[in-house]
């Protein structure tokens, strides 16, 4: 069959089969979301499942045949103005993915054919200070696609047509608020965070009614005067201190607890105006999703002056420690330490470096870093590892229950951190900056950490300190990307290189996902301004 005929056949196939499929499976149910591992042919949400483990049970692509993986199709956004950063959601043969500056597209998963697209109407004057002009993904539930926009709207789209069901303006972009992260659907609720923490927004985590878009609760991440935590600030910055919530949280249905992480305090590199620990910046918050009340919190970097947002996805897993089964939460933090917490109580269990770090002697028994002297930013610059983009960044790690390894993209890079004059009048907001060491003095690596201890079991070196995701599969593989636009597969047990393909462009920044359609497994991700799906011959 020629390519042209194949495309025509594909288009007809899309109309016929996806109509049938949509009636059955575009209506994603809460039970499906709860048991996402039961439908490994789909990729139902950001993180793959509520635990954000990014582990696929698909095995068609495996150690033995991954070397034959080849590009199946590519998709190029209409406006390639920024690198793509979206994590795709896949339901019943249809993929929902976003492209800069926030367009949502529905693609046929076999051929990449566009089914519909929706583009937000953004204001001419768009504030995205300290925020990538991009979007990291959608949530899908009950034939509806949910997405946030750069001008801080939360929008519900019909999953079959792209028609707007509701559009809620949740905050003022003119005051620095944006949404870049993927929202999270729980039972009857849509949860979203907010971006803009570097310009002193009053950040929050919100819950909205899925059907109407009505706000159900708001949890502010900077306490108001008199509220618990307000004593950890000076008098000047309460209400404008950052703590953006620009990642996507995880959820434990048994504990009915939502775990959402927060960003750095502001101004970032100068803490003179915000003496104290600056709660709830750089935290993971355990939240009752029915009320929005905080159950507990854990702060990774009190009084952060190095821009070490803690927005890395909190990964949930269960394991036995000292003979006792524990419900755990792991995070490789931007500050260079790998943490394991008890996710029932928030108790600190493990905190060990997973990259070179020079700012703390270690983590004490309560989880507080033992900060070394002379590591604060200075006007002349203070050399500290890791740099401001951290030991790892927003791109998601993964966990394999087969190996019990936590796979993370590690960044080995230092920077001179420079304290500048604190500026707190929007949009003139900031407190210094950093001068990264030369790229030839830095490198990146995919590292396998023993999940319960953080002990490194293997690493695969990369040229640059990459901001990329990992994806673990039951095929015994870990997929990842590089900052130079390479995609590759490693043996999950040993880290041996098994496959590589160069797309080029800039970073392979999207979260890689995998799915199966018509009995064929695909790998999907983006690099530069292009998305690529791979399959076997």
């Amino acid at each position, binding site marked *: 069959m020629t390519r042209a005929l194949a495309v025509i056949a594909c288009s007809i196939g899309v109309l016929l089969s996806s109509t049938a499929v949509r009636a059955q499976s575009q209506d994603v149910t809460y039970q499906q979301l709860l048991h996402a591992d039961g439908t490994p042919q789909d990729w139902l949400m950001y993180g793959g499942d509520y635990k954000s483990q990014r582990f696929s049970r698909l095995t068609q692509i495996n150690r033995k045949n991954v070397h034959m993986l080849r590009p199946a199709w590519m998709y190029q956004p209409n406006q390639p103005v920024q690198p793509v950063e979206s994590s795709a959601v896949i339901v019943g043969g249809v993929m929902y993915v976003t492209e800069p500056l926030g367009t949502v597209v529905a693609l046929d998963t076999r051929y990449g054919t566009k089914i519909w697209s929706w583009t937000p109407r953004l204001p001419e*004057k768009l*504030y*995205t*200070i*300290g925020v990538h002009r991009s979007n990291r993904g959608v949530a899908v539930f009950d034939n509806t696609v949910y997405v946030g926009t750069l001008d801080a709207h939360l929008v519900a789209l019909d999953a079959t047509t792209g028609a707007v069901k509701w559009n809620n303006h949740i905050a003022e972009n003119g005051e620095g608020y944006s949404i870049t992260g993927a929202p999270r659907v729980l039972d009857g609720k849509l949860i979203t965070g907010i971006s803009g923490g*570097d*310009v002193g927004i009053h950040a929050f985590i919100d819950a909205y009614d899925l059907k109407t878009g009505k706000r159900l609760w708001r949890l502010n991440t900077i306490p108001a005067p008199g509220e618990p935590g307000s004593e950890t600030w000076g008098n000047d910055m309460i209400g404008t201190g950052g703590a953006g919530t620009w990642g996507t949280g995880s959820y434990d249905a048994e504990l009915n607890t939502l775990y959402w992480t927060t960003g750095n305090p502001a*101004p*970032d*590199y100068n803490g003179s105006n915000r003496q104290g620990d600056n709660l709830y910046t750089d935290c993971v918050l355990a939240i009752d999703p029915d009320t929005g009340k905080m159950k507990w919190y854990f702060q990774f970097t009190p009084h952060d002056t190095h*821009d070490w947002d803690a927005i890395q996805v909190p990964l949930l897993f269960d394991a036995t420690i000292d003979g006792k089964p524990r419900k755990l939460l792991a995070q490789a933090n931007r500050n260079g330490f790998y943490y394991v917490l008890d996710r029932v109580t928030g108790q600190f269990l493990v905190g060990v470096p997973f990259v070179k770090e020079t700012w703390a002697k270690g983590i004490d028994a309560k989880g507080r870093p033992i900060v070394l002297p002379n590591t604060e930013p200075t006007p002349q610059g203070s050399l500290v590892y890791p*740099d*401001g983009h951290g030991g790892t960044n927003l791109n998601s790690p993964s966990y394999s229950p087969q190996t019990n390894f936590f796979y993370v993209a590690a960044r080995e*890079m230092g920077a001179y951190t*420079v304290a*500048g004059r604190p*500026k707190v009048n929007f*949009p003139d*907001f*900031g*407190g*210094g*900056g*950093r*001068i*990264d*060491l*030369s*790229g*030839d003095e*830095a490198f*990146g690596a995919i590292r396998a950490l023993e999940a319960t201890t953080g002990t490194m079991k293997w690493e695969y*070196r*990369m*040229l*640059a*300190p*990459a901001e990329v995701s990992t994806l673990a599969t039951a095929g015994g593989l870990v997929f990842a990307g*590089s*900052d*130079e*636009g*390479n995609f*590759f597969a490693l043996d999950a047990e040993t880290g041996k*290189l098994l496959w*590589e393909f*160069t797309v080029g462009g*800039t*970073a392979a920044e999207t979260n890689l996902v995998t799915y199966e359609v018509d009995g064929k497994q695909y790998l999907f991700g983006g690099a530069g301004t292009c998305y690529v799906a791979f399959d076997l011959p």
Partner: protein
Amino acid sequence: MPDSYLTISDKDAANVVAYIRTLKVSTGAATTTGDPAKGEALYNSSGCSTCHMVAGQGGSLGPELTRIGMMRGAPYLKNALEHPGTDLPKVADVPFGGRWTQYLMFRAVEKDGRVVEGIRVGEDSFTIVLKDASGKFHGLWKPDLQSLEKEPGKSFMPSYKDTLSDAQMDDVVAYLASLKGAQ
């Protein structure tokens, strides 16, 4: 200037300043006392044009020098003539965390023991392209190499510290400092 630059943060501004500093634009850093005309004659007689290009004439192994006087000051130029390879230029490139070293030399040993030595002209996590002294490109698959080592401080360019007198050195520096492209 794009509108978005009006809202650049302190952090981004500091990063821009840091990058500009790496360019070492220092044309006024020191005055040159040499004679540019004599320097041009020395440049032509010393074989410099074998590897360097000025106004479309010359080789391409080393940096193009047509506008070098706009980009580098006399101290930098003198150091490059005396100690080539010790202060190589950095260039902005996203895969290298913002800056990477140009003209950095590498020594690669292939599986069969063959050695390739050259200037890095391209690299990613899995491949590297070296340009050898003859200008030939060698594309190499890193996982197949026995070893791959940087050679900091090394250069194909010879030092002129002992072959030029102080006065001749000043003349060549003056000539290079006078190269400012089309006026």
